[in-house]
């Protein structure tokens, strides 16, 4: 039973309130018709399965119903951060201790959560 910080509710909630939605940061190709079958197959079906830091998408299904991202260690199950859609992770396989300050974009330094998603 994970304990997950919802970046919109701004508090920790029980795993029962959430649904996992697979790997985060999968973007639908802007022009699907221009994709080869292989590229389209990659988008649809191929996912990472790393040992260690992984970025996942979850939805606060019994709660605010917002989708957001989770950086989770698949070995220890530790959740390093949760962040709204559209933002980039602070902790990555490359920077397991967190990205240096110059790698962070403005949105991460000052997240706006009250007004909703991507508004």
């Amino acid at each position, binding site marked *: *039973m994970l304990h997950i910080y919802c970046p919109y509710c701004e508090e920790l909630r029980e795993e029962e309130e959430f649904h996992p939605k697979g790997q985060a940061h999968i*973007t639908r190709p802007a022009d699907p018709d221009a994709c080869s079958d292989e590229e389209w197959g990659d988008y649809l079906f191929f996912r990472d399965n790393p040992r260690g830091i992984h970025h996942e998408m979850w939805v606060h299904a019994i709660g605010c119903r917002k989708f957001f991202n989770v950086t989770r260690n698949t070995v220890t199950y530790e959740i390093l951060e949760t962040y709204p859609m559209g933002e980039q992770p602070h902790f990555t396989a490359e920077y397991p201790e967190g990205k240096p300050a110059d790698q962070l974009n403005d949105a991460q330094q000052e997240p706006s959560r009250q007004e909703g998603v991507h508004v």
Partner: protein
Amino acid sequence: MSQSLKQPNRVREGGRIDRAQTLSFTFNGKQYQGHAGDTLASALLANGVNIVNRSFKYSRPRGIVAAGAEEPNALVQLGSTEAAQVPNVRATQQALFDGLVARSTNGWPNVQRDVMSLVGKLGGQFMPPGFYYKTFMAPASMWMTYEKVIRKGAGLGRSPMERDPDHYDHLNQHCDLLVVGAGPAGLSAALTAARSGARVILCDEQEEMGGSLLDSREQLDGQPAHHWVEGVVNELAQMANVTLLPRTTANGYHDHHFVTLHERRTEHLGETAPLTDGQRPSRSRMHRVRAGQALLATGAHERPLVYGNNDVPGNMTAGAVSTYIRRYGVVPGNKLVLSTTNDYAYRAALDWLDAGREVVAIVDARKAPEGDLVEQARVRGVRIIEGAAVLEAKGSDRVTGARVATIDAETFKVTGSSDTLLCDTIASSGGYSPAIHLASHTGARPTWNDEILGFVPSLVKGVHAAGSVRGFHQLADGLANGCSAAAEALSALGFAATPVELPQVNTYRQGAACALYQVPHEKPTLRGPKQFVDMQNDVTAAAIELATREGFESIEHVKRYTAMGFGTDQGKLGNINGMAIAARCLGKTIPEVGTTVFRPNYTPVTFGAIVGRHCRDLFDPERYTAMHQWHVEQGAEFEDVGQWKRPWYFPRTVNGKTESMHDAVARECLAVRQGVGILDASTLGKIDIQGPDAREFLGRVYTNKWAKLAPGRVRYGLMCKDDGMLMDDGTTSCLGENHFLMTTTTGGAAGVMEWLELWHQTEWPDLQVYFNSVTDHWATITVTGPEARKLLAEITDIDLDRETFKFMDWREGTVADVPARVFRISFTGELSFEINVQANYALHVWKTLFAHGEKYDLTPYGTETMHVLRAEKGLIIAGQETDGSVTPEDLGMQWAVGYDKPFPWIGKRALTRSDTRRVDRKQMVGLMPKDPSVVLEEGAQIVFDPDHAIPMPMVGHVTSSYYSPILESGFALAVIKGGHQRMGEIVYLPMVDGKTHAAEIVSPVFYDPKGERQHV
């Protein structure tokens, strides 16, 4: 009869029992007496009961070995009535209550004289090591045979056959710090945290808090240990920020400090929960604790030594001897031999002397033991045999002697000649194994500590440990360690720790312990007397040695091969000894061999506590519509659709005779085709969609076009996933230029809602649109059949003229005085009106329809009739005709796919792949059985050539199949390879019973193929 005669092993004074309260109990049919404060185990020992069980595999007589959760033998079946049966209760953990009835779990026909013991005498070839492994490799049918014999003979307890009168519940708890274990370290930790203002939960598995202090020889501040315990527990009990949970075992440590605690609330009071104030409290309770941090003060289990016949009743752990004497006032024998590797165990001999009984000798494996406790024993004149160990116990139903010799632990050799000491009790101690179970549930691998000769827990972030579990066995260390570990946790939680003044205690000078696990014997292990490692699973040192000889090197494999540490035991007493033996045989060290992983639960948890109140009619939520009461009163049979209870059919009862389902459905079908029927369609998912981009959004999530749908119009839509496979379908109505009402399937409602949000929130956040579920707000009543218009016209102000209110239009107005939206959509193929009204008024509308419907023989119908009618029209049900591998075109619904829409809608790209364009894909068709009386089986496989050798190529299957009263024939929908091009062909369905049905491939629209009836 004097008390001492009744309870020969009860000492006159001392212990935490109340001798003024005598309790009667029955064990294996015989009546005994004990006292309030006893466990079943202490009461049995007080009464001199030696044999409490027969062993699992060899059926050897077994007695009580330990005093707590680690007891391997004294498993009993509780319950005086069938309903009250509880299997596998440890007698050491069951508080005695008046009228308790217990039986041995193993032992058939009785523990004293056991037919199965023949197996034991034959040397156990019946179940050699690897028995489970080898059995599972054999044909499965053999296991069935073995299992019956084993279970009947050995028994593993049994579940009650009658309904449990008790109930159970869950309590969700939250705290800053969870402290597990209320011994010295746990108490000092809890006190520190509580005084610092943190929300604290302190749980302990025993009847009272205090842990080792309850049977301690120590003085705290010059007072007996329990005085300090009472002071601390009283203080904690007064504090609002503290929850004290005695009789509560922390059984599982799950992710992110979620810990399950099993509280036995009334099991010390009686076999069912007694009524209090007319109410029956829950018998046991699962606390689901979400802790900020946790502190494990779970103590340690004493390791017995592994020597010959160490399972004969009268062999015990040294600590258990102390506990029975000091806590329960029971001295479990007359003449004691103590075999030890360490100083601590000397307390057992001192306690035995204090109880006025004879200590024959202390056999110490160390060459020159020294230390304060050793000195105390010497001063009291106890014979100490140095550099020696008990090689083997004598006796069969009870220890009669101990054969003792000098040994060399390092070379694993007996070095001197042996001497047999007459005694009835052998206490042994090979050291202490920290109870690391909970820490290891977190996934942290324990590490071997050479100094304490045990595994100590590694700790994940937020978990702390204190006291014996970390190897701090001295009282002063444990107390101080509790405070400092609590301070660490508090600091992580952001609390300033309030220092606690600790009581003054003695610190003992102690000699180093010696590493001895299996005691050497003159004969090789495989030929010597049985040396038990795991008594519950009857695993011997020889079995482990044999496993290593057979090539098992990983301790995890040895465990599974021998069954060591299996079952309810979980290796509490035996695991470390087993690893040490494996290490010796493999020529490795214990840390090299490694430890097995402990998993939840620490001790067995009843199903009741796991289930809590989620049982019987609260097992799963049942969802009802606004018309539910009417359906019940009409005698509807219900069908589960997801969590919904939907009327399945409405059987009529005439002259006391109730229609069969077949007759009811046939009647309902004909009523709709020839008159008018009414369906409660409220369970359909309904989503309100508003916003300037609502129309654009619909165009992206549906395969068909939405750009031109005008207000007042309705359209059917197909929803695919991006792999091009159908996921849901339904109608969407245009309520206003920027306002739509989408319907989904009953089962798909929540999923579609989440799907829309997913795409909006993650891919197209720029689209201005909002989705809101209105499934529960609107009730939906379908009135359908040729007479539907006439009926509805009687109670509505809406103009129902067929020219102005056309098929696939919707209108608003009142129905039965209630504002409604009425939709001319049809799932039956007949003239249909779907009426949406605010659900609070729906029953009124429903009843008014019936008040006016009598003259039309208005017939309520259920989901079965709905299915038949829609299938006659070839209308699909997502999830029945489809299974995630079916495209709109496979269904013959290319008319609902808009390839020329400007935006690359969901599913479009995949529908242009070569595979989805194949002409031999499974395609939906109708099937007409050649024999009209046949109703094909749903799921039946279809072949082209029934004479083909087996395996026949299977070319499709039946997705829906019913009897049609209007066609007077069975009929089916099916998916068949290249089916659209095979109209008129005959296919075959070979059935399990050997029959083969023939059927013709036909159009899936069986009735009114031109679709005229819904337009009337």
